[in-house]
C-alpha cells in the first residue's frame, strides 16, 4: 500500500536520519573516551538543576552517567526528536509547499493512503535512528574498554524513540491540518523544547513533580529508563498520544482544501498591506530594498543572520558570568585534559578569564558562527543568482560584472560587521557583568579579528562561486579550507618539526597572537584583510572571463 510514496520518503530522508544518528553516536564515543581519562566527579557537584538540564543521572554515575546522560539523554534525544519533527513537518506540508502534493494526488491514490505512507516512513525513520544510536551505545564501552556498570540502553532508546516519534507526529498533524510547513516545524519544535524544560525543571520545586508529569518529555526522561527500565505506563502514554495525533492528521488532511504553491506572507508583507504602515513599510521593504544590487542582496540572508547573531550574542553574554561559577577544582580538571583536546582551543589557559573566554567562545563557537553566515553569503553571492537564474536578467542591465562582484563583496563585509558588532556587544556585556579581568579593548580586537577571519572564508566562497557558478562547490571548498587551516593551527604545534607551518593558517593570524591578552595585532589583521581583498580582486576576472551558467 502506497509503497512508492513510502520508499521515496525513506530514500529522501534516510541519509539525513542516519547522519544524525551516527553523528550523535560518534559524539558518544568521543565523549566517553575523554571522560574515561579524567576524574569526572566534579560534574556531580553541580547543582541538581544543571544536572537535570544536561540529562545527567547521578544514579548511573561515573563516566556512563555523563556520557549517556549528557550526550544521549540530552543532545541525542533532542537530535532524534528534531529530525522526526523535520520529517513530520515535511510529510504533507513540505510537499504542499513544493507544489508536489497536487501532482502526487493526481495519481489514483487517496489522501489517506498518501498520509499513511508518509506516517509509516516517519515511524520507520525514527526507529532507524534509534536503532543506530542503540547499536553505537551498546558497543562503545567494549570498543573503548570502559566499565559502565549496568545501564538499560534498550529501555532508554525505546522511550527516547517513542518521545521523538511523538513530536514528529505532532508536527505531521499540524502540517496535515494547516499545510504550513514552517508553522508545523516551529510549533512542534517549540512545544518539544518547552516540554523538555518543564520535565527537567519542574521536579526541582515542591510539588512540581506532579505538574511535570503532564509534560510528554517527562514520560521519556522522568523515571530514568536507563536505570529503571521500560515503564509500561509512561510508554503507553507516549504511544497513545502519538496514535491520537496520527488519527487527527487523517481527519485534518481530509477536511481541507490543499494550499496552492505560494511564498510565505511575512510580517513585512502585512505591514505593507496595512494602510497605516504602508508608506513607511513600502519605503523600507520596497524602494530602499531595490535601490541597488547591494541593498537587494542584503535582504537575502537576513533570517540566517538574525538567528546566528542571537546565538552569538546570548552565548557571549552567558560565558562571562559563568567563569565565576566554576568550581574550585576546575583548573585541576582542565590540567588533566589530554594535550590534543587543549590544542583544539589553542592551548588556552582555562584558569584565566581570557583563557576561559578563548576556550569556550572564541576558539570554536565564534569561528563556526561567523563562517556559517559568511560562507553562506559568499557562496550564494555570485553562484546563487546564477543557480536561481536571475543573473542573466541582472546582467542585461547596464551593469558590468565587476560591479556585481563588488556589490556582493560589500554585502559580505556588511554582514560580517553587523555580526561582529553584535558578538562584541554580547561578550562585552558578559565580561562587564561577570567582572572578568579582560580588557574590553582586547575583546573588541579579538572580535574584529574573527570578523576578518569570517570575511576571508566568505571571500574564498565568493571566489569559488565566481569561478564556477556553483554554490555547492563554493561551500565545500571554503569549508574544507577552513577545516584544514583550523587543524593546522591547532594540531601542528603539537609536533616539534611541523609546528612552524601553523603560522600559515588564517586561524593562527586570528588567535596566534593571543589577542584577548595582548590586544590587537595589526600585522595579523593586515594579513587577513589583505587576503580577503586579494580573493575579492581575484573573483572579478574569474567571473568576468567565463560563460554564465543556467
Amino acid at each position: 500500500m502506497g509503497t512508492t510514496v513510502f520508499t521515496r520518503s525513506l530514500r529522501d530522508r534516510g541519509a539525513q536520519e542516519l547522519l544524525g544518528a551516527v553523528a550523535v553516536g560518534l559524539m558518544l564515543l568521543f565523549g566517553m573516551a575523554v571522560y574515561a581519562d579524567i576524574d569526572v566527579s566534579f560534574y556531580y557537584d553541580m547543582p541538581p538543576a544543571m544536572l537535570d538540564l544536561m540529562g545527567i543521572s547521578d544514579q548511573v554515575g561515573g563516566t556512563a552517567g555523563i556520557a549517556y546522560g549528557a550526550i544521549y539523554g540530552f543532545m541525542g534525544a533532542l537530535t532524534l526528536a528534531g529530525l522526526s519533527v523535520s520529517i513530520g513537518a515535511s510529510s504533507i506540508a513540505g510537499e504542499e509547499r513544493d507544489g508536489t502534493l497536487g501532482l502526487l494526488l493526481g495519481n489514483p491514490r487517496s489522501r489517506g493512503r498518501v498520509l499513511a505512507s508518509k506516517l509509516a516512513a516517519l515511524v520507520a525513520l525514527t526507529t532507524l535512528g534509534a536503532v543506530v544510536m542503540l547499536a553505537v551505545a551498546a558497543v562503545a564501552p567494549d570498543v573503548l574498554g570502559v566499565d559502565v556498570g549496568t545501564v538499560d540502553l534498550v529501555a532508554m532508546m525505546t522511550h527516547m524513540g517513542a518521545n521523538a516519534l511523538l513530536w514528529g507526529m505532532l508536527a505531521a498533524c499540524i502540517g496535515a491540518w494547516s499545510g504550513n510547513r514552517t508553522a508545523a516545524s516551529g510549533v512542534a519544535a517549540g512545544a518539544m523544547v518547552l516540554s523538555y524544560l518543564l520535565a527537567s525543571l519542574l521536579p526541582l520545586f515542591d510539588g512540581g513533580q506532579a505538574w511535570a508529569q503532564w509534560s510528554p518529555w517527562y514520560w521519556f526522561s522522568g523515571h530514568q529508563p536507563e536505570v529503571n527500565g521500560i515503564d509500561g505506563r509512561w510508554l503507553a502514554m507516549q504511544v497513545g498520544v502519538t496514535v491520537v495525533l496520527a488519527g487527527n492528521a487523517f481527519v485534518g488532511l481530509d477536511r481541507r482544501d490543499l494550499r496552492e504553491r505560494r511564498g510565505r506572507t511575512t510580517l513585512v508583507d502585512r505591514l505593507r498591506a496595512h494602510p497605516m504602515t504602508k508608506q513607511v513599510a513600502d519605503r523600507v521593504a520596497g524602494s530602499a530594498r531595490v535601490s541597488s544590487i547591494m541593498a537587494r542582496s542584503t535582504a537575502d540572508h537576513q533570517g540566517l543572520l538574525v538567528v546566528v547573531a542571537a546565538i552569538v550574542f546570548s552565548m557571549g553574554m552567558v560565558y562571562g558570568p559563568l567563569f565565576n561559577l566554576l568550581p574550585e577544582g576546575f583548573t585541576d580538571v582542565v590540567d588533566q585534559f589530554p594535550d590534543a583536546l587543549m590544542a583544539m582551543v589553542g592551548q588556552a589557559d582555562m584558569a584565566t578569564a581570557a583563557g576561559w573566554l578563548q576556550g569556550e567562545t572564541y576558539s570554536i563557537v565564534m569561528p563556526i558562527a561567523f563562517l556559517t553566515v559568511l560562507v553562506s553569503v559568499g557562496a550564494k553571492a555570485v553562484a546563487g543568482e546564477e543557480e536561481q537564474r536571475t543573473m542573466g536578467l541582472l546582467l542585461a542591465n547596464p551593469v558590468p560584472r565587476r560591479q556585481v562582484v563588488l556589490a556582493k563583496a560589500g554585502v559580505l563585509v556588511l554582514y560580517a560587521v553587523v555580526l561582529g558588532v553584535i558578538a562584541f556587544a554580547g561578550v562585552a556585556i558578559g565580561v562587564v557583568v561577570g567582572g572578568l579581568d579582560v580588557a574590553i579593548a582586547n575583546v573588541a580586537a579579538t572580535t574584529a579579528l574573527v570578523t576578518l577571519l569570517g570575511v576571508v572564508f566568505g571571500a574564498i566562497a565568493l571566489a569559488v562561486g565566481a569561478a564556477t557558478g556553483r554554490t555547492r562547490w563554493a561551500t565545500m571548498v571554503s569549508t574544507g579550507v577552513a577545516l584544514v587551516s583550523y587543524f593546522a593551527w591547532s594540531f601542528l604545534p603539537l609536533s616539534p618539526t611541523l609546528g612552524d607551518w601553523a603560522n600559515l593558517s588564517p586561524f593562527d593570524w586570528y588567535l596566534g597572537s593571543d589577542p584577548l591578552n595582548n590586544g590587537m595585532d595589526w600585522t595579523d589583521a593586515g594579513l587577513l584583510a589583505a587576503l580577503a581583498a586579494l580573493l575579492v580582486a581575484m573573483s572579478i576576472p574569474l567571473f568576468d572571463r567565463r560563460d554564465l551558467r543556467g
Partner: protein
Amino acid sequence: MTTPPSPSTGTGPGTGSATGPAIRTRALTKHYGDFPALVDLDLDVRRGEVFGFLGPNGAGKTTMIRTILDLIRPTSGTAHILGFDSHADAVEIRRHIGYLPSDLSMYPRLTGKDTLAYFANLRGGVDWGHVDALAHRLSAQLDKKVGDLSSGNRQKVGLIQAFMNRPELIIMDEPSAGLDPLVQQEFQQMMREVAADGRTVFLSSHTLSEVQRVADRVGIIRNGHLVDVEGVHDLRSKAIRRVELAFDAPVDAAEFEAVDGVRDTELRGNAIMLSFDGDMEELLAVATGRHHLVDINSEEADLEEIFLAYYRDDVAATGSAREQARA
C-alpha cells in the same frame, strides 16, 4: 567590421548610436565542449523590423541570444549590436536594449513593482507613467510577490521589464510562454508599435503562428546552422500549397506523385490531397487529362508547413534544404 560609434546616453527613439543593422553577426560560433551549438552564423537584423527567430527546441536560439548579450562568449566570430561590439561594449549595449530570457526567473520575494523598480534603478530611472500604461495593457498584477504569481502573470512582469525603458532593441526568448490569447494579441500589438517607432524587436519562438502574425522577416535555425532568412511574405508566396482535387471516381496516387513538386499524397474516397510547390499547369494537366475533375481547392500553406518542409530531412544544410527534400 564596423567601428563603434560614439556612445549616446539617451534611450528614446531616434537617439540610436548608429544607422547600421540592429544586430549583425559574422561567423558567430559557439561550442560547448565538443558540441557545436552555433556554427558560422551570419545574420543581419535591420532597424525598425520585427525579426522572428525560428527553430525547434535545442536548435541554438537561446545560445545565440545569450552569446550576443555577452552572457556567454563566442568560440569564434563576432557580433555587433546597434553597432557596438558585443563583448567590448557590453555595458553600453545594455543601455539600449531590453531583454526577456526564456523560462523567466525573478526574485520571488519582491513584488512586481519592486522588481521593476530594481531594474529601473540599475538603469538610472524609468518613466513610471509608461510602466503603468504597459501594466494596464497587459493586465499585470504588480502589487503581488513574483513568487506568488502564475507563470503567465510572471511573464507579464518580465515583458514590462523588457519594454519599460523604450529600448532601441528588444530581445525576447520565447516571450509568449503562458500568456492567454487576449494578452498575446496585445503583446503583438506592442511589438508592432515598437517597430513602427523605428525601433527593433528580435524574438525567438517555436510558435510559428505568432511569428507569422507579427514578424517582418524570419530566420530559421537548425542544429546551430542558420538555414534561411526570408521575408514572411516571400516565404509564403514561394512556398508549398495544400491542394485538394476531387473526382467522380477514385484515382491512382502514383499518377500524381510522378508530377514534379508533389509530396505527401493522401487519398480520401474520390479525392486526393497533396502538398505542391511545382508548376500548377502541369498538375492540372494530369488532373484533367484522364479524369473528370469535380472540385479543386488550393490553400496557401502556413509557416508550420513551411517549417516542416525545411526540417523534414535530417540534413544540416545551410541554405537549400528544400531543394534536397524535393530531389
